[in-house]
């Protein structure tokens, strides 16, 4: 009985949480201009999306390309910077370690708007032309802390002597790095990369403040502008459905992998 009630509660919450997402997915299979008006099953919106035959298609496709480009570049740099930083942080102690950990926490605690406004003022102050580079640098700044926090536990689990052992056995420092250290950190690096990538994909506020006036649009800013004009581009529905499925697969992949690793340990 208790179990039944608990299951019911979980399912009701789940249905509520997913209602908007399911709503988008369902109405991606009809041609209606407005969400909520069903006029027959059709895969037309998907076709439009893939063939690029739609109103304002070039700007939507450009927005998707920008979003992916910014997310990939910033997550890759975050992974590199964060992994090196985590190795350094792991070998630090005392006040320096505490200070760096504190600074690393700030971007995660700060609300998006504050991060966005503060970086906007930075680029103004430095007379830095805002555009792709300023957005990418901003995304690196909020993505890297997640990489650091994903790699640190892997460093703690690692036997600190394996790296020295490799050196003693005649490996060069770069061999020891690539053959001993990196393979042990790789799971944390991949999780960190995926976290930084999805944070970047989802970001609206920081991009909004740091993209400047060159007309750079990502998916979020495109949706914002679109909704302000009134009426979303119908092709956004199939696009969001696909993105949702990709993220679902990615997250399940991370979790199944983590569960497997815990079992094998």
């Amino acid at each position, binding site marked *: 009985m208790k179990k039944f009630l608990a299951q019911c509660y979980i399912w009701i919450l789940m249905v509520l949480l997913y209602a908007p997402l399911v709503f988008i997915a369902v109405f991606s299979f009809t041609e209606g201009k407005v969400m909520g008006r069903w006029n027959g099953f059709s895969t037309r919106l998907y076709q439009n999306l893939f063939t690029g035959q739609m109103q304002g298609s070039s700007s939507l496709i450009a927005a998707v390309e920008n979003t992916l480009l910014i997310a990939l570049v910033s997550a890759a740099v975050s992974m590199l910077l964060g992994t090196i930083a985590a190795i350094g942080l792991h070998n630090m102690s005392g006040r320096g370690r505490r200070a760096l950990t504190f600074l690393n926490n700030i971007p995660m605690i700060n609300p998006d708007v504050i991060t966005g406004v503060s970086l906007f003022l930075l680029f103004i102050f430095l007379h830095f032309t805002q555009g792709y580079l300023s957005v990418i640098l901003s995304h690196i700044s909020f993505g890297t802390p997640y990489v650091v926090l994903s790699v640190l536990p892997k460093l703690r689990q690692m036997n600190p002597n394996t790296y020295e052992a490799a050196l003693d056995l005649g490996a060069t420092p770069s061999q020891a790095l690539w053959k001993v250290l990196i393979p042990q950190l790789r799971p944390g690096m991949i*999780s960190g990369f995926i976290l930084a990538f999805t944070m970047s994909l989802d970001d609206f506020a920081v991009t909004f403040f740091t993209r400047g006036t060159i007309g750079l649009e990502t998916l979020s800013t495109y949706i914002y502008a679109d909704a302000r004009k009134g009426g979303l581009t119908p092709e956004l529905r199939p696009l969001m459905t696909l993105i949702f499925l990709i993220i679902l697969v990615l997250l399940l992949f991370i979790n199944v992998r983590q569960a497997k690793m815990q079992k094998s340990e």
Partner: protein
Amino acid sequence: MKRSHWSIPYAIFLGVFVVLPLLLILVYALQDGSGHFTLANITRFFSDSDALGTFAVSIEVAIENTLICILLGYPAAWILANKELNRSAVTIVLFILPMWINALMRTLATAELFGMFGIPLGKGTLLFGMVYDYLPFMIYPIYNVLNKMDKSYAEAAQDLGATPWKVFWKVTVPLSMPGVASGVLMVFMPTVSTFAISEFLTNNKIKLFGTIIQENINSSMWNYGAALALIMLVIIGISTMFTGGRKEAEEALI
């Protein structure tokens, strides 16, 4: 080269892209348009009835949203962390998944759903939408703390004759407070500073504080915008001190 030196590039990066920008908020907030020191931006806020009203509404909505998220989220986290009631690890993934979907798109879909059922947009729909957006951020940290909790405390209380109800209130709830604190941190401040989402959920009837900041920055009133951001930073500092559980907040996300 010592390996602790590997953190130097990141330390420099944090200095330029985190510390300096926050200092600039302070600098711009205390300057007028021509760069002279002034407190006028701060005093202007306290006489700006529009901004003050928005601020009060934001705090009110944030408190209500946080309370509803705790009331709905705590039982869910407790059930998910209970091995007898939930054996599947996939359920928790499904609960945190919406966090990774574009919040604007989710919000717009929610607003359309309300429209389809003929529910007028206003305060009620705003709260509903906010709970949608932030509930996962409350569930996950509480779940994490409950999941890592040493079960022997509860068993000991039971062995010593406590009823299940007493075990829950006197052992489980106090031990899970760090998780609740992180949840509050991750729901309260983001709600106050939300922009765009509140307009879409209320058809522009209710603005939250983040929108006021954005409007000032976008209309080139950088100094006043910075002053408003500074006021938010002060509140973040205070609320972090109150909740204290800063560390779990981020670790809860991973």
